């Protein structure tokens, strides 16, 4: 089994999930509660990766963030950072590509919290932050778990974006899905089978855990 690719993939999926929680929570909060007229534009932008092929995202990523790109050149000059064909670049691209998988469950969770509970919290003197931490977030806990797992699972199974942005560098950007592709190209079916089976079983176990957790959360009354 290609442990190097497996560990790299898990590291990527964990990093991306963590970044998506940090970005996703405020973004989803804004989408769920803002009354701006142009909110629909932000919602559409967030949902774009659902409909676009990863090649489109990867292409513009390279164009913008490549060494010759407007943002890429600036990043390189100021911070000495190069994104294409690096692990960091893979994280940035994967975060963008998995954004809807984190944001949409969170928006659904926040929007399903009874507005009267939010009003009651404010009337009892709570700040917005306290209301969010004590009322909105706990009542959206199952949605948060769903968001994390979907982000993780979606990154785990990513192929196109990784190939476009990361290339195929062992230990740096060669994830398990790329390794499988390589194996198949080289007619190395035994190795491909091992890695594919690992991904299959691992994904199934993760998803089962989540569904089991959500069930339990439902019964102990975390969900209304």
């Amino acid at each position, binding site marked *: 089994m290609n442990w190097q690719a497996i560990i790299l993939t898990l590291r990527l999926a964990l990093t991306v999930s963590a970044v998506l929680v940090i970005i996703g929570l405020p973004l989803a909060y804004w989408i769920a509660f803002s009354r701006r007229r142009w909110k629909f534009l932000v919602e559409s932008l967030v949902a774009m990766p659902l409909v676009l092929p990863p090649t489109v995202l990867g292409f513009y990523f390279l164009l913008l963030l490549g060494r010759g790109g407007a943002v890429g050149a600036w990043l390189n000059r100021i911070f000495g950072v190069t994104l294409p064909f690096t692990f960091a670049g893979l994280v940035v691209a994967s975060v963008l590509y998995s954004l809807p998988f984190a944001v949409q469950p969170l928006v659904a969770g926040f929007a399903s919290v*009874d507005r*009267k*509970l939010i*009003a*009651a*919290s*404010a*009337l*009892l*003197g*709570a*700040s917005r932050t*306290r209301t969010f931490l*004590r*009322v909105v977030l*706990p*009542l959206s806990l199952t949605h948060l778990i769903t968001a994390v797992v979907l982000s993780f699972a979606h990154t785990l199974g990513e192929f196109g974006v990784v190939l476009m942005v990361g290339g195929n560098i062992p230990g740096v950007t060669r994830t398990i899905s790329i390794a499988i592709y390589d194996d198949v190209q080289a007619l190395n079916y035994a190795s491909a089978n091992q890695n594919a089976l690992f991904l299959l079983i691992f994904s199934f176990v993760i998803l089962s855990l989540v569904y089991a957790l959500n069930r339990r959360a439902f019964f102990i*009354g*975390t969900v*209304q």
Partner: protein
Amino acid sequence: MNQVSPLQEKARAADRLLLRITKQFAKARNGAAGFCLDLNATVLAGITILFGRSGAGKSTLLDCIAGLLPPDSGRVALGSEGEETVFFDSEKGVNITPAQRRIGYVFQSLALFPHLTVNANVEYGLVRLDREQRRQRRAEILQLFHCDSLGERKPDEISGGERQRVALARTLVTGPRILLLDEPLSALDVGTKLKILEDLQAWNRRRRIPILYVTHSPAEAMRLGENVIYLEDGGVLAQGKPEILRQYAVDEF
């Protein structure tokens, strides 16, 4: 208009809520008339019944007082012995947040936090106190409302009447300067309701603050109210002692 009951003349604090509000709360469309709240009223300390049929603007009025909805124009202020706290003033651009108003508001749905225990619900508004003070205040109020045995249970594990008591306790424990009750007892049987009303009246005798109690039950209005504001189509139709309701041939009389 505006008769003052003897009870209120004895009131130790002369708190009163001064209201001048206009607020469009349903847009006119397809020939249906729009509704506009347009009223000028003073709510004295003690229990004032806000009476009126559904759609008269009762809940909109409470939301405007609490700061959950901004009035289109007007002024909402609490007057207390020469001092005045302005919550909203469209001319001066004042509109303080619900969290800063210290207004108690019990919704018809109660809005108890379903994921928190009774104790945690009641202590929710006491975050500024230390742990021991919180515990003490919570124990006092739960005893006053006869729910000291519920402590560690969640709202969906207690009865409807108990939930109403906990909701009242959670709001009153914070020492609000104004209390707004939007039909909090409408779902209860008469016996349970009367007992809770007694507890509320006991609290009212101790702490005289303006209480606005929404109901469309004339029986409740007569029993509980020291004053009545009769709202119709967004305006004050009549204001005075509960007996004034008789003049308006309200259905249930």
